[in-house]
């Protein structure tokens, strides 16, 4: 089972420009990561709270709606967040241009 998890993580990591991948549980505790400890803990804490806020915005605007994907583009990277009830997947990608 853990092999499947590792395999999917590797596949995501092998995409063009991907810097790191983190899986976080609903409490914001990182479960799997390809980045170093400090960075992982930072991302996990900050992104979980932002994803929660984004989700509550979407649901407040329309209770029948739900957040599917959150993308944050900065000068250096793009952070993609795929939230779920139990887990959150965070992928950091560097733009190619």
């Amino acid at each position, binding site marked *: 089972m*853990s092999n499947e998890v590792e395999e999917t993580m590797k596949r995501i990591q092998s*995409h*063009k420009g991907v810097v790191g991948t983190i899986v976080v549980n609903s409490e914001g505790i*990182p479960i799997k990561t390809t980045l170093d*400890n400090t960075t992982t803990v930072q991302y996990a804490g900050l992104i979980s709270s932002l994803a929660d806020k984004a989700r509550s915005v979407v649901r407040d605007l329309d209770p029948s709606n739900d957040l599917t*994907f959150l993308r944050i583009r900065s000068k250096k990277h793009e952070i993609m967040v*795929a939230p779920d009830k139990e*887990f959150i997947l965070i992928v950091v990608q560097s733009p*190619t241009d």
Partner: protein
Amino acid sequence: MFGLKHNECVGFESRWKVKKVSLVGSTQTTEYTKTDMDTNTSDKKDIEVQTESQASAPTCEVDEEKLAAWLKKIYPSVKKELDDNAHSRAFRGYKLSTDNSDANCRLVQTLDVSTHAKDAAVGCHVSALSWNSTNKTLGVAYTYKHNSWCYHEGVVVFYTLDNDDNLPEAPRMKLTTESCVADLRFHSVLPAIVAAGLFSGGIVVWNIQRDDEQIVAKVDGHGDGITQLSWIADINSVKLVLLASAGLDGLLSLWNFSPVEFGLSLKERHQIRSPLFPKPSELSSEEAVKKATRAITCFNFSVHSPEMFVVGTEGGWVVQCSLLGTKKLPGKSEETPVLDSVFKYHQPHKGEVNSISFSPNRKDMFMTSGSDLEIRIYLIEQEDPAQVIFLKSALNCVAWVPYEERIVCGCGKNGVIEIFQLVKGKAIEKTTRDKVKTEILTQIEINRTKSNIVAVGTENGHVQMWRVPWALFGNMAS
């Protein structure tokens, strides 16, 4: 009784005195060396060190099965987003308006292509530059200085960008033609097809992917030298691409090019005639106004309306033409009819028209540059130019900047890329802080995929690669 007796003296050795035998000797101490050294007692300080316990990421029990299933489920959508992002052009050239990094054109590479010319001593200049449809290969054509007819062998070299977006020192391919190349254009869709127009009037089409026999088509296009080539969309069919060629004989020819059979066949010819006198009176009928055939110096087809094209001719005429509603010109008895497609005359330049091109951003706007030191912006409906930018020194080539509406660029005698603000009609001062050896620049071609990469050809047979942050210059212009 007393008598005299002489006794002998008797001697005897002393028993308590010892005779010492001694020998004199001397000794000499050996040379000795002396070194002075200071020592100092050092201050000692005691300090204690304790390893900190590492803040380990708090671990928790996780259901691996559930996690694996969830990851499997969302992987396709994540993959799609990642791939879209990698190929997205949405943020291309996008810079924050608060980004204050300085606007500076950087010269990153200079290549000497004239070494490939046979008579390099004669002096050759770059006559044409063209990026191919994938924007990874650059074709460079150069000509020698001509006094009258061209007796030279034309040379074209091709370079492919490496991973760092630089050109290699050696070209990937070098091709020769029977006379100097006046214009070189890569096919708009097929990345290995390139057409060259020669001073002798011939057109050659090559396939540069082939190792041998690169020529796929060769025709005697025009009776006089070719001035410009362009690959255009066929108005009659969606997929087909035609080759348009213009020459000093005043004709604009459209050629069918078949990607399967690889040959050029003439489709139609247009003769661009312009009035003899600058301001034809409105009362004269078309027949009454004498028209002359003048050499076409440049032309451009509109991307938004493929039947519309504009032509710059000798004498400074700026003519707007259309492929629809053409009239057959009388008195021509050729297999392919010669058509008159002139639609409208715009106010002419006072000198030769060096280049003419439609704006990639606005479908009703085109720009011309003339030897009268003017860049003019025309709108389709208006005869008079909407904006005129007066130049201090002549420009050999001007170009629109992709995705930037507020600026246009050009190159010429000043030896640097010159950028002009469209609204104010003025040049931006000091576009580069680099110390550039001043050469007259003849051609400029902006890479269409990565628009900050700009290739510039010089009069000394050099190709310069520049990096230009157009968006920052555009911000300065607003």
